[in-house]
């Protein structure tokens, strides 16, 4: 973002300067700088959860907005995600130790016949950053993979992803099978992927179509909040 980048010594920046610098470095996909900055904040006594939310997640939020507005494109988002992944790798074990808040549990996977996982991986990372526990089933998942895992774990949300017109109808197979087994209403089902749209999401019986990772996070948070409200009513 800046030609002065080479001159900046991260460890010499105050917290007030370093956090926006982390946002800039995330924006520019500078993984090594992100890892260094995360270590610096932790060494200064920051709680891992604060590093995650105030530095990394906020930085990715800015990236997400500029992606949505057509200022950034997929390659830049991937570089930013890769940089965030570096920071997350440092924070993840510490988050578990320090009892960071958990918003809910999500199972996610790309559907059968589809090997595309860029969007799914972004969603996974952003959901983890937002405080969700995410189990990623990977690519090319038949209905059994989803159902077996849902039945064996304690999940709130099922996320399904597809990039191909030919594979996206498989999401309906999964949802229909959940209905047959009487388990559909136990989960919030979120779907996403380039060829999907709102109408498709409704037509297959998903709870929501999420057009990008940021929307997925916001949608998941809304569903979890309304679930808690229902439970406490």
């Amino acid at each position, binding site marked *: 973002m800046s030609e002065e980048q080479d001159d900046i010594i991260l460890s010499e920046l105050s917290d007030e300067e370093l956090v926006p610098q982390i946002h800039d470095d995330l924006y520019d996909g500078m993984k090594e700088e992100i890892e260094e900055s995360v270590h610096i904040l932790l060494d200064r006594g920051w709680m891992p959860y604060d590093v995650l939310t105030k530095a990394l997640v906020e930085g990715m939020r800015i990236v997400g907005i500029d992606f949505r507005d057509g200022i950034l*494109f997929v390659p830049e988002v991937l570089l930013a995600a890769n940089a965030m992944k570096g920071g997350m790798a440092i924070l993840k074990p510490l988050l578990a130790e320090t009892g960071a808040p958990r918003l809910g549990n999500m199972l996610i996977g790309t559907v059968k016949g589809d090997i*595309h996982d860029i969007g799914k991986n972004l969603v996974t990372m952003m959901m983890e950053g937002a405080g969700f526990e995410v189990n990623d089933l990977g690519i090319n998942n038949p209905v059994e993979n989803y159902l077996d895992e849902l039945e064996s774990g304690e999940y709130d949300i099922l996320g399904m992803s597809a990039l191909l*017109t030919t594979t996206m109808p498989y999401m309906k197979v999964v949802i229909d099978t959940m209905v047959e087994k009487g388990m559909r209403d136990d989960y919030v089902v979120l779907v996403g992927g380039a060829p999907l749209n709102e109408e498709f999401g409704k037509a297959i019986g998903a709870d929501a179509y999420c057009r990008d990772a940021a929307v997925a996070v916001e949608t998941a948070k809304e569903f979890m909040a309304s679930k808690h409200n229902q439970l406490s009513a």
Partner: protein
Amino acid sequence: MAMEVDDNTLTEKGLDVPDVKTGRVLLLACGALAHEILALKRLNKWDHMDLQCLPAKYHLYPDKIPAAVEEAVHKHHDDYETIFVVYADCGTGGLLQAKCAELGVEMVAGPHCYSFFEGNDLFAKTSEDEITAFYLTDFLVKQFDAFVIKPMGLDRHPELRDMYFGNYTKVVYQAQVNDPVLDAKAQTCADKLGLPLERRFTGYGDLEVALVDI
């Protein structure tokens, strides 16, 4: 006389209808299919058909296709007896099919050009076994940098290759014509992705079948 159109123009701007119109059939196509359609017109002497192409770069932004098709259909509706849309679903998630139904025009069957070039029935049977194949057509081989390398940022950030292509195991080049120059280019494309190449001659497949029925 054979019409010459360059690939960069087809990618960025498409192809306008001719000044002198037949008034019979307008083929409203993806720019990536222009060479194949013009070849079929020539071979079959389909002189009652005119061709207009939308920019092939919509391949990268399928959400733009239905609106662009609608605009072109409205523009030429009074000039032709029949307008036929030479797109498959092409990543529109059924929205192009719905738009064509609304406009009262027909379109090519199938999910995308890789399918109709190979033949929709055959592709449906075989594609499940090769979900890790990355498909290229003649046009995409010629315009590989414009459609793959540059938009994916691989020219600037080759380290992203694995994030995009880590799950792929091969490049399948569906050749519409036999051309050693294109074969060599396809090999270069596969090399850039770090994947083995499989060449498969398809000819025009179901594209010809679709057009012959108009």
